[in-house]
């Protein structure tokens, strides 16, 4: 079905072709290595007292 006429002839808000994001599903799909990876990522974004960046 066509778009509503109100959408035609206006300047768009998405200024350039969007690039495909790397698919996240493989990193979070259950399985031996991915589960371990998910746990590590979760640890990386968990508050940690006294953590140093350098």
């Amino acid at each position, binding site marked *: 079905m066509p*778009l509503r006429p109100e*959408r035609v002839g206006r300047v*768009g808000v998405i200024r350039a072709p*969007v690039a495909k994001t790397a698919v*996240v599903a493989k990193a979070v799909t259950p399985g031996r290595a991915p589960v371990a990876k998910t746990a590590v990522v979760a640890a990386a974004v968990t508050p940690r007292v006294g953590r140093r960046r350098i």
Partner: protein
Amino acid sequence: MTSVSLDELGPVDYVVVEFPAGSSNFTGEMAAELRALVDSGTIRVIDVLILTKDADGTVEATELSDVGELGELQAIEAELAELLAADDVDHLAAAMEPGSTAGVLIWENLWAAPFASAARRSGGQLIADGRIPIQAIIASIEADDETATAGD
């Protein structure tokens, strides 16, 4: 929109969620979760389009209102602002694989609006924002691990 309401506008984001040919499994779960985010005042849905890309790359856009049974999405559809222009369709579909279908969702982050407004009242101005992909976090952790292993 008045200047007061503009000042209170939260940041607007979008996603394009692709469903490769033959992989879609619509149970209503996505619609229910989206409705919950709206009902809790976390987000306001501004626009939704459904895109299909044929095997030859031809893109067709469908309005949410033209989808048959909307269910949970009925109330959301009634409040859409139709921000996207026809010009946006090809740009949004650029990332799609031929033969796939995708949902485009544009939303305002209502949860962020009070903080953004307070930052502006405090004299701040947004100079950068973005999203950190999970892949980047994984790459960082793996690089740290390799560095640690090399030091053994």
